[in-house]
């Protein structure tokens, strides 16, 4: 019986986490940026490394390092809030007029749960994203990759405590990164 209870709890947790990620995508795509910020823990780390082409055997050099190298993003909530404020000034030309953005989130996998699936306080969840961005007339970007998130239970709600974004590109094919992953 205990096994079944745990299996049910696992299923419930997976659905719960998936729903959270879909809700987050919904807020971003509907441009509810300030509500999106509320989903982030105050000590959130938001990191998107750059990627190099390296030889097999030297793959440890593929990614730029968090907290040490230049990355596409490597920041906390303060900078993320400023990004949102900048969009909301109405004179941030790279996002004015606003882009049309669609986040497709899939392949949601729970990698770790602590202390247990019955009482989950922290989870590590990996997912795939496909972000479609279209702006002004014909400018279109499609960005595909993986995310690894840390989610933390705070007052009965999930908060994102860390996000690692792995974009499957080396030279960035988009002219800017004015949106959120």
């Amino acid at each position: 019986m205990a096994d079944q209870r745990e299996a049910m709890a696992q299923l419930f947790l997976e659905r719960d986490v998936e729903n959270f990620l879909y809700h987050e995508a919904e807020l971003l795509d509907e441009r509810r940026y300030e509500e999106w910020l509320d989903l982030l823990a105050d000590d959130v780390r938001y990191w998107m490394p750059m990627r190099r082409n390296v030889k097999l055997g030297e793959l440890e050099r593929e990614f730029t390092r968090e907290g040490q190298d230049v990355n596409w993003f490597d920041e906390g909530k303060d900078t993320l809030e400023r990004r949102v404020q900048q969009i909301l000034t109405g004179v941030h030309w790279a996002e004015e007029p606003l882009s049309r953005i669609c986040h497709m989130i899939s392949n949601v996998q729970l990698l770790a749960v602590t202390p247990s699936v019955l009482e989950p306080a922290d989870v590590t969840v990996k997912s795939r994203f496909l972000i479609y961005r279209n702006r002004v007339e014909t400018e279109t970007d499609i960005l595909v990759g993986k995310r690894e998130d840390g989610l933390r239970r705070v007052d009965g709600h999930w908060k994102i405590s860390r996000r690692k974004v792995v974009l499957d590109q080396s030279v960035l094919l988009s002219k800017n990164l004015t949106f959120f992953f």
Partner: protein
Amino acid sequence: MAIAGKRRYTGGLVDVAAGQISREIFVSDEIYAEELERVFTRAWLFVGHESQIPKPGDYFVSGMGEESVILCRDREDRVHVFLNSCRHRGMKVCRYDEGNTPVFTCPYHGWSYATDGKLVGVPYFREAYHSKLDRSQFGLVEVAQLEIYKGTVWATWDPSAPSFLEYLGEFRRYLDLALDAWDGREGGTEVLGGVQKWLIPCNWKFPAENFSGDSYHNISHRSVDLVGIGPSGSGRRDMRERLIGRRLQICFPDRGHQTGAYVLPNEEPTPPAYQHSPVVSEYFRRCEEQRRERLGAWGRVTGAPGELFPNTALHPRQPRSIAVWHPRGAHRTEVWRWYLVDADAPPEVKDFLRQYYIRYSGPAGLTEQDDMENWNYAHAASRGTIARRHPYSYEQGLGFEVENYEWEGLRIPGTVMDVTDSKSSEHNLRNFYRRWAQFMDANSWDELATWRRRP
């Protein structure tokens, strides 16, 4: 030997005297093909930083014009820059961005090259070539000249080009503002790990012009100024020099290099900055003090964005960086950005700056994003048949340049425009295009090295 009065570019498509420049030079595919030949094969180009290849066998794949090149350190510790293309059938011999290797082996037929460029391996050399191929003639194509200057590596394909130091001329002092340690010691900077590379849809000359000294585009950055990302929490940079010093635009007509700069008054110390972090603030305070001591009056000069002709941009103040605008067709540019810090700065200072650099510059930078949007759509809106008939205006400050500019006992090298009161000038932009037109018209370096003809 006098240069003919009116040529296709000088006085034609690029009419600097009238302050008008044709849109054709930005959007024409035919002119683009010509500039790859006339500008990019003759000028000195930035390739990378020595600290990226510290050990023998280390390499970093870079670019010159449209072409891929390998910057590497051979077994004898000599630095080389090679065209990244096999001499047999052209395949790229290195498709990694960086690493360490004893040889570059072509994946197509297996010709292999040592890190000094020599062809050392040819499959079936005895059988298929009957041992007759003269391997000494088929090393990797190497640049004609290479110079390592305070850690930065520069190269040109043209054997007749002047040396790098001659190419720099007096602009060297402004390049030093980016490469010397903040306390004024020579050299002393290193690059942070990770070179940002991204594609933008505009001609490479839009960003080159912007960094040459476009001080007119404040409206572009209204949003980031409102939000405040500067190291002291307001605006996009710490700009207190602006309030007490002179704001200058400086160019070198015979070289094509140009930059902005601030000159502080004689008696005033450099204003404090970086108050967000006591450690960082104290670091810069101490550096500024030592800089004044070490450099004397020149210690009052701090840099602003500049452009080393043709496609290397300098950002000597924080965010301290070097960018290269790699041409990728008339309508596209691949930007590469390296970030610089004082090599012996405390880790906390390096980390503070690194975070500031990323939120300011590059495709995720709150400032640079808005720059790019303007270049992109200016380019797109200039391609039309009607649009091309109407040249751009570059008339700000025409005729107000000053030679031998001096302020409070400090002479400033170069042709100077003091924009403290006038706010803005297009003097540096005209200088960039004047030089570009000369490169496009000239048939040889004899014509381009005008300074050698002076009495």
